[in-house]
């Protein structure tokens, strides 16, 4: 009964979305307020019904109702409760339901909190949102119904894929989807602006918070996915340039570019056409990401045809939305009036530089990900494009970008003074040089890139500190001045500095972990000891125990440093009888500061020894910590009063702030 209610709620949501697809547009054309207002109610009602549908599926999972095919295929009565909740989106159908739920949440938020938007813009935005929603409701209802019943009710479910039974992965898809789907708002605003043929600085101010929110979620989502891959997959890498990872990286790169170009548009009324295009492209890349992952086209061009209905359906959605919006762009963009001029050396130009490199990096990932597919389809030649290609092309594109990061916020709008900025960055340069020289002295020519990587990371971090130091007038040495100016500084400026600083943190983690990380692969018998980077791990023996829905064999290790015990590590292997004995490897991690010792279990050998893989990863946690701090920077910026209410601060307080 619950499943049928959920199904019905989803159909109702589709009906509402279809109404919302045309009524506000007609309302906006004719100036009919009632028709436009209708969209507010339908957007909220849509959210209610999708939430009901999602709740219904969740209820089926929690109650282990195996008469529902989706629950039978992905759940087990003995599974811990938390995974019963998370397995709702641990499969194709459920994850698409989560997709539309998040879309509906964003739509309802615009309806509820968009009171300061012009009525016609809001109406058009909500209409575009429900075009997307309708397409995906239809997709779910026709090709991926999560509420399908089984004629014969099985006694027990087939369990969730064991590698998904992990907390990190449980939270990863919702964050990622919040990011993907969040960009739909920017897309809807862009299409609405094209329909209206009018766009101004206020538009950018409305779009920026939504973009920021989506970008933050995507940043955290990607970081969590990367950390999950690091500890769960058992070979200690943190980024594999896997097509599925690339699918999430592309919208992130485009979204980052969008955030920056929207600043130019908001502050200087410039780069309008480009910002609109970026908004369209960012969401298009999110759709492509969904397509790539959901259609199975990545596994091989051939698996695409194992379930052609789904793949084709998403492909049609993709073509309609991307093709349609780009055509609309080509037709209407020339109508948009260009705004403020700027000199080649200026904050605007720095942001254009940022956009150019981010867009190129994004295009590189795009070409690299899709090239093998296209080549095979056109010529039948099979090639692989893997990590070595991306490291060779993506890396060099990011170097000039990172060098430019400290310059951007210090340059003046309209016309800047590059030489002056370079002088102000002297201290940051000095810090970078010291770091570079120290690394070089320590490492010599053993690691060629490490000194430059360290130098660059320090430069980016010191540059962000310089920005803050100048804004709060650190040189005045008067606590009162510093305090007053720090308090008066716009939160978005703090956000910029924090996010830029975080880039340096991540880079530092990447350079250190990949340069000074060490690895050992050994076979051990009980009471033998293995050492890595000053840590001595002695193997005490094997332990067997039962988990809720798995059996586990763990190896017990005592970790010593300079003779004293600092911890215990228990890497294990879990076998899931419900999944025909499928097993997972659980690595053990010992965290010391931001460095980690990583221990992963291999095979049992005939002579009673076990194979282990042991890594020391110095400063590795900085990689993900940097991503979190980056998102924190976004949150700070989001909390800026100017973005929230879309109105300038009282004039008296503006005067007390440094010019931006």
């Amino acid at each position, binding site marked *: 009964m619950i499943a049928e209610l959920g199904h019905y709620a989803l159909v109702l949501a589709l009906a509402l979305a279809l109404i919302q697809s045309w009524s506000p547009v007609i309302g906006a054309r004719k100036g009919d307020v009632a028709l436009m207002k209708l969209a507010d109610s339908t957007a909220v009602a849509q959210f209610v019904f999708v939430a009901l549908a999602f709740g219904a599926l969740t209820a089926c999972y929690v109650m282990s109702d195996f008469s529902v095919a989706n629950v039978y295929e992905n759940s087990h009565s003995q599974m811990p409760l938390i995974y019963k909740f998370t397995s709702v989106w*641990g499969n194709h159908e459920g994850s698409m339901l989560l997709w539309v739920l998040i879309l509906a949440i964003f739509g309802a938020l615009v309806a509820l909190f968009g009171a300061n938007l012009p009525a016609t813009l809001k109406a058009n935005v909500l209409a575009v949102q429900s075009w997307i929603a309708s397409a995906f409701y239809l997709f779910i209802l026709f090709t991926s119904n999560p509420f399908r019943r089984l004629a014969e009710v099985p006694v027990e479910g087939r369990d969730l*894929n064991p*590698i998904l039974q992990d907390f990190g992965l449980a939270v990863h898809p919702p964050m*990622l989807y919040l990011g993907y789907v969040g960009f739909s708002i920017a897309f809807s605003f862009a299409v609405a602006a094209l329909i209206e043929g009018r766009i101004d600085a206020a538009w950018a101010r409305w779009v920026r918070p939504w973009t920021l929110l989506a970008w933050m979620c995507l940043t955290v989502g990607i970081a969590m*996915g990367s950390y*999950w*891959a690091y500890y769960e*997959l058992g*070979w200690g*890498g943190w980024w*594999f340039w*896997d*097509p*599925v*990872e690339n*699918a*999430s990286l592309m919208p992130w790169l485009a979204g980052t570019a969008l955030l920056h170009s929207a600043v130019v548009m908001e502050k200087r009324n410039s780069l309008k056409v480009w910002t609109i295009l970026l908004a369209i492209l960012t969401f298009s890349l999110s759709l492509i*990401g969904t397509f790539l*992952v959901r259609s199975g086209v*990545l*596994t091989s061009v051939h698996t695409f045809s194992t379930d052609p209905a789904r793949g084709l359906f998403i492909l049609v959605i993709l073509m309609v939305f991307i093709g349609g919006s780009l055509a609309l762009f080509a037709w209407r963009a020339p109508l948009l009036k*260009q705004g403020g*001029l700027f000199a*080649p050396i200026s904050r605007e130009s720095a942001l254009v530089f940022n956009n*150019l*490199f981010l*867009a*190129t990096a994004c*295009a*590189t990932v795009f*070409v690299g990900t899709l*090239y093998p597919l296209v080549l095979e389809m056109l*010529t039948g*030649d*099979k*090639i*692989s*494009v*893997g*990590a*070595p*290609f991306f490291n*060779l*092309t993506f890396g060099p*594109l990011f170097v000039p970008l990172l060098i430019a990061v400290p310059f951007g916020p210090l340059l003046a709008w309209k*016309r800047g003074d590059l030489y002056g900025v370079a002088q102000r960055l002297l201290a940051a340069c000095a810090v970078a040089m010291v770091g570079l020289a120290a690394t070089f002295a320590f490492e010599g020519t053993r690691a060629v890139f490490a000194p430059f990587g360290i130098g660059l990371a320090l430069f980016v971090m010191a540059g962000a500190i310089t920005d803050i130091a100048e804004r709060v007038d650190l040189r005045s040495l008067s606590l009162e*001045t510093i305090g007053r100016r720090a308090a008066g500084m716009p939160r978005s400026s703090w956000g910029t500095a924090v996010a830029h600083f975080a880039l340096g943190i991540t880079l530092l983690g990447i350079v250190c972990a990949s340069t000074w990380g060490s690895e050992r*692969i*050994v*076979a051990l018998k009980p009471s033998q000891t293995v050492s890595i980077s000053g840590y001595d791990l002695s193997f005490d023996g094997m332990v067997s125990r039962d988990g809720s829905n798995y059996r586990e064999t763990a190896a017990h290790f005592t970790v010593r440093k300079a003779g004293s015990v600092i911890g215990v590590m228990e890497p294990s292997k879990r076998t899931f009888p419900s999944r025909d004995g*499928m*097993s*997972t*490897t659980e690595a053990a991690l010992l965290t010391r500061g931001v460095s980690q010792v990583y221990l992963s279990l*291999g*095979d049992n050998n005939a002579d009673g020894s076990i*194979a282990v*893989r042991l890594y020391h990863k110095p400063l590795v946690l900085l990689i993900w910590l940097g991503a979190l701090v980056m998102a924190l920077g976004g949150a700070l910026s989001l909390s800026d009063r100017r973005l929230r209410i879309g109105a300038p601060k009282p004039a008296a307080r503006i*005067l*007390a702030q440094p010019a931006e």
Partner: protein
Amino acid sequence: MVWSVRFLLVVLALLDATPLYAVQVDEILPDPALEARARAISHDLRCMVCQNQSIDDSEAPLARDLRLLVRERLKAGDSDTQVVDFMVARYGEFVLLRPRMSWHTAILWGAPLTILIAGFLAIGFSVLRRSARTPFPEVAKLSEAEQLKLSAIQKSQFE
């Protein structure tokens, strides 16, 4: 999102009763220099039955065979290039994670630089076109009186 692909990989690994391990203890060559070369080569070779995994990372039996093969060739005195050539001759270009530059990968390798240059040119032209229409206004230096006024304002502001 990574899991959908990894899932297949795990399934593939499981087809062979016990999951094997990436580089195994018995594979490691006694000569550290040779072993380092073997690891570097394996990083760039694809395990053909896996999703986007190098033979160095893969648990599949095929990857183990390829790792052993690489080490055999190295022990026989092959240079790095010879080993890679040997693998390509045997398994085709699909085995390379970094495709070679040739006519059918021209677009792939050319894309980053081409896009970057095209972007630079596009920006350059649009700036030229716009400045031809509306020249950027020259900013006059502040006169002495204006300068005094400005410093007076700044003084009153930040004291």
